[in-house]
């Protein structure tokens, strides 16, 4: 079967190259998930979105500028997630795009990042036909919940380990990307249960296909870009990072 997967990875890769010269593989498209999984993923995602709303409302009361801040940063992260990053293995013949959830989790916190991801996914589903409305819950789980929390905790752990700002950003970007693809693979892997397939095997194979194509490299690239972004913002406007709680004191130099 491993040989089949290799051939399959090539087919998958060629399919995506043919689609607008861009790879948008982390969204589960409309109609893929059966009803029971649609309900399950919505049930999993909604409490996180609800807590995200609560966080925004609470912070809005303390700091009224918070709502437009989440709106503009959400839009910035959305535009960042549209950056056409060239796939190095193909010498730039195809491009991929970052998730952006790692960056939004670092800047806004994990729960608000889930909310922003949910809105971004709704916009993408409606206006770009990436993802879908019935798969919104599933996509919020993989991209919003797993992506945001893994990226946020990676950043915090890296900070605790006293790594430089670049490496903290790198780990947040890379880990959130990896977890997003893992989440998508789990959701797709779960579909084979009860149909003669093995969940673990299918998940591992789908995740393997993601990593073997451009997405494995993309995780590293997104990490580097997020690292560069944080360092750039720190050098130009450290007050922003202080305001968002990424650094504790902008008068003391931070290792970059």
């Amino acid at each position, binding site marked *: 079967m491993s*040989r089949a997967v290799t*051939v*399959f990875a090539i087919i998958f890769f060629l*399919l995506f190259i*043919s*689609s*607008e010269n861009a790879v948008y*593989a982390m969204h*589960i*498209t*409309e*109609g*893929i998930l*059966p009803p029971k999984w649609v309900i399950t993923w919505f049930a999993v995602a909604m409490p996180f979105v609800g807590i995200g*709303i609560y966080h*925004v409302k609470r912070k*809005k*009361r303390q700091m009224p*500028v918070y*709502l*437009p*801040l*989440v*709106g*503009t940063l*959400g*839009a*910035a992260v*959305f*535009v*960042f997630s*549209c950056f*056409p*990053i*060239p796939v*190095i293995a193909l010498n730039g013949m195809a491009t991929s795009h970052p998730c952006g959830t790692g960056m939004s989790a670092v800047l806004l916190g994990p729960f608000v990042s889930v*909310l922003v991801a949910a*809105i971004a996914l*709704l*916009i993408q589903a*409606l*206006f770009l*036909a990436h993802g*879908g*409305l*019935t798969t919104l819950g599933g996509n919020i789980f993989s991209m919003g919940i797993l992506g945001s929390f893994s990226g946020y905790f990676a950043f915090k752990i890296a900070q605790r380990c006293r790594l430089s700002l670049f490496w903290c950003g790198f780990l947040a970007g890379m880990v959130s990307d990896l977890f997003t693809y893992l989440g998508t693979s789990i959701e797709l892997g779960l579909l084979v249960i009860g*149909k003669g*397939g093995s969940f673990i095997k*299918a998940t591992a194979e*789908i995740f393997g296909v993601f990593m073997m194509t451009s997405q494995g490299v993309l995780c590293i690239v997104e990490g*580097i870009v997020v*690292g*560069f*972004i*944080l*360092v*750039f913002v720190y050098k*130009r*406007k450290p007050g922003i990072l202080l*305001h968002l709680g990424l650094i504790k004191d902008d008068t003391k130099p931070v290792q970059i």
Partner: protein
Amino acid sequence: MGFLHHTFSEVYARRNNWLTEVDVRVKLLYIVLLLAINLLTKNIFIPLFFLSVSFSLLLTVKIPFTAILRSMLLPLSFAVFILLIRGLHEGEKVWLSLSIVGYKLVLKEEGLWNGLQTCSKVLGGISLVILLSFTTTISQLCAGLKWFRVPNTIIDLLALIYRYIFLFLDEVDTMWTAQRTRLGYTSWKKTIKSFGILGGMLVIRAFARAEQTYEAMHARGYEGGGILTATLPPWRKKEYVFVIGIVFVLSFLIYTRHVRVW
């Protein structure tokens, strides 16, 4: 990023035609219920019917065929991916066995049939979503969601994020062109560094823009409530007819067992 700007510019939704004039609440109700039917059906013809009707409706309001096809291309490739995954994994009965450069691929009948069902659902579902997005502006959508009691925070953020995507796309485009003219993308290493600077500038501008936006909102009387004040008119006879129509269609499909809800 040019194609994104075109996609987000609502060029088709802002046109005046009979589909854009349909009440957004009716459209939302129809799309949600039809998506549920699309999901629950065991029949491949119902999703394909949705696909053909959506295509026909969009063509009647002169949406270019290429624009519809471009929107469908990615979901279609994902559907083919699922078709192949299921064909390789599910079932016992071999439908096709082939060898590609020494690698043996075995496609099974049951898996392929299940995959085909999924493919039809993807096409049917996506065509319905495209039908909504090509005929509804974001302001209509927000007003509709507000009517359906979606939390204000979601609607406010949806409106804000959507509004600033345009602005930042323009700004990023300008900065990107400037970076390109200064050879910022000549090598892969330079490309990544340039993207880092671009993303950093985006964060700085987003922060500055948030302050300006809040000042403008405050000056216009914003006190922390909902930012959208538009309300929809009361339902007319036409809207009631539409809603009764979908209830009948749904009841018929459940009665004839085309849609199984239990």
